[in-house]
Structures are given as structure tokens and as C-alpha cells.
């Protein structure tokens, strides 16, 4: 039980997120309405993804320092879980966008030409595609040590690309996505105080869920590759 305390915290925080996230009173902003509750869910996916990718790149560096294949397994599994959360964040963003940015007077496919220009969408797609390429690159190399080395170096490049693609370029270009003038979700002045007491536990909860899933994947991979290590 000693090792499992953080899993209990994860369960408690996410149950709290669902209950409080749906019940608290949120400011009824024009266009957004009640959808600002998505801050606890949609933005939580990205927080989780960033943490998982960060852990992945740290393990890639650890591999390059030690050449211990165990870190290569860690690095790969964290990247996979990061991609899963990234895809969830992308698809939830699409739903949210369809009912806020899209002009209700036009058919969705007519708004599409405006929405497809959204730099945040393009940047995120690029970042996720770079991580897909990481998987393709890995699995195309047969030799284990070579695969680990090449993919560890690529992982560092992919992580470096994540920042311009997701955080910097969409904020320089004109964009509908919040974040033009700073960091609205993390800025203490922009989020209403009541929402903040759900927001931060939600971020921690989703991140812990991602780490939990990844540890299971890592343990499974270690059992599977025991002969090789």
C-alpha cells in the first residue's frame, strides 16, 4: 500500500474534478457560456501530455548518459501515453471549437475554411505528427542499441519542436484560441477564484492518471523484454 498512495490521490482528485467541475458556478461569458468548465477536462489533457513528454525526454537523456536499455523502454512508453493524451486533447478541442468558434449561422463546413487556418490546430497537429514519426522511426530499426540511440536523439529534437509548435507560433499569429495575451489558464488574474480550486487539482489528477497508465505499460514491457535486458 505504501507505493500506491498517489494512485488513491489520483482517484480522489479526478472524482473531485468531475463533481466540483460540473457543480460549481462558472462565470457565464459571452460565446463560452457553461463550456468554460472544459478548462478542467480539455486543458487537463494538455497538462498531462506535456508532463508525459517531459518525462519521456528526461529518460531519453538518461539513456544517452548510461546506455541502459531500461531507460529506452521508459522513454518510449511515456511518449506513447503522451500521444494518447494529446489525441484526447485534440479531439475534445475540436468538439469545444465546433460550438464556440464556428458561426452557428453557417454550416460547419463553411466555417471550416476559417477554422482550419487556426494556428493552434496546425501547430498541435505538427507536434503530434512529429511524435508519430518518433514511433515510426523507432519501429523501423531492427537493432536494439541503434534503435535506442537514434530514437533517444530524435526524442530530444521532437521535444524541442513541441515548444515552438504548440506554445510560441500559435501565440505570435492571429488566433482564436485563448493565449494571445499570455497564459490565460495559468494566470491567476484571468481564472475566476472558484474555478481555480478545481483547475489545479484537475491538472494534477489527469497527470497522475497518465503516469499511472504509463507505469503499467512500462512494467508490462519490462516483463516482455526481460530476456533482452
Amino acid at each position, binding site marked *: 500500500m505504501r507505493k500506491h498512495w498517489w494512485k488513491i490521490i489520483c482517484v480522489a482528485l*479526478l472524482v473531485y474534478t468531475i*463533481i466540483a467541475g460540473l457543480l460549481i458556478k462558472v462565470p457565464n461569458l459571452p460565446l463560452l457560456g457553461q463550456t468554460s468548465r472544459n478548462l478542467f477536462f480539455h486543458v487537463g489533457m494538455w497538462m498531462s501530455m506535456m508532463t508525459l513528454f517531459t518525462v519521456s525526454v528526461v529518460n531519453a537523456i538518461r539513456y544517452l548518459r548510461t546506455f541502459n536499455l531500461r531507460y529506452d523502454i521508459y522513454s518510449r512508453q511515456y511518449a506513447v501515453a503522451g500521444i494518447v493524451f494529446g489525441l484526447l486533447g485534440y479531439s475534445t478541442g475540436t468538439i469545444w471549437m465546433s460550438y464556440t468558434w464556428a458561426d452557428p449561422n453557417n454550416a460547419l463546413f463553411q466555417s471550416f475554411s476559417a477554422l482550419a487556418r487556426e494556428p493552434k490546430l496546425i501547430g498541435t497537429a505538427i507536434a503530434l505528427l512529429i511524435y508519430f514519426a518518433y514511433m515510426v522511426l523507432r519501429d523501423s530499426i531492427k537493432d536494439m542499441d541503434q534503435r535506442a540511440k537514434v530514437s533517444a536523439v530524435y526524442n530530444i529534437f521532437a521535444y524541442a519542436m513541441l515548444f515552438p509548435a504548440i506554445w510560441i507560433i500559435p501565440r505570435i499569429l492571429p488566433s482564436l484560441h485563448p493565449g494571445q495575451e499570455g497564459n490565460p489558464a495559468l494566470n491567476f488574474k484571468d481564472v475566476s477564484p472558484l474555478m481555480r480550486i478545481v483547475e489545479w487539482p484537475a491538472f494534477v489528477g489527469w497527470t497522475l492518471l497518465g503516469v*499511472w497508465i504509463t507505469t503499467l505499460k512500462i512494467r508490462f514491457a*519490462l516483463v516482455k523484454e526481460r530476456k533482452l535486458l
Partner: protein
Amino acid sequence: MRKLKYIFTLLVIPGLPALVQAQEGNKESAVGEFMRSTERSYVVIAVILTILIGLFLYLVRLEKKISRLEKDNGQ
């Protein structure tokens, strides 16, 4: 068989309050009253929580399976 019983119990428990209410006839039970308040939005929360808890139980089961696998492999 034991597993089936376990799953069946899990499926039935969330519906129990409704059953109790049905036996009482016309009178609204406290649970039913609560669930129907605020335009029945608590029903949605109950559904989401059930999904979330189901996923957590699945993760715990996976965890146990992997622990057993690790033990069998002597890690």
C-alpha cells in the same frame, strides 16, 4: 462463475435506489428527489462517475495482473 457474480453485482448496485423507490409506490424516495433536483443534472454526474470508477477498477485489475506476471517471472 465467481467473476460473473461480481460483475452482475456491479451492474445492479447503481440501480438499487430506483428499485427501492419502485417498492414504495407513489412516494418519492430521498435519493430520487435528490437525483431529480436541479433539472436532473445529478444523473449526468452519476453516469460520468460510474464510467470513471469503472475505468479505475479496470486499471487496478491490470495492475494486479501485471504484478502476478512480474512475480512469476521472478522480477
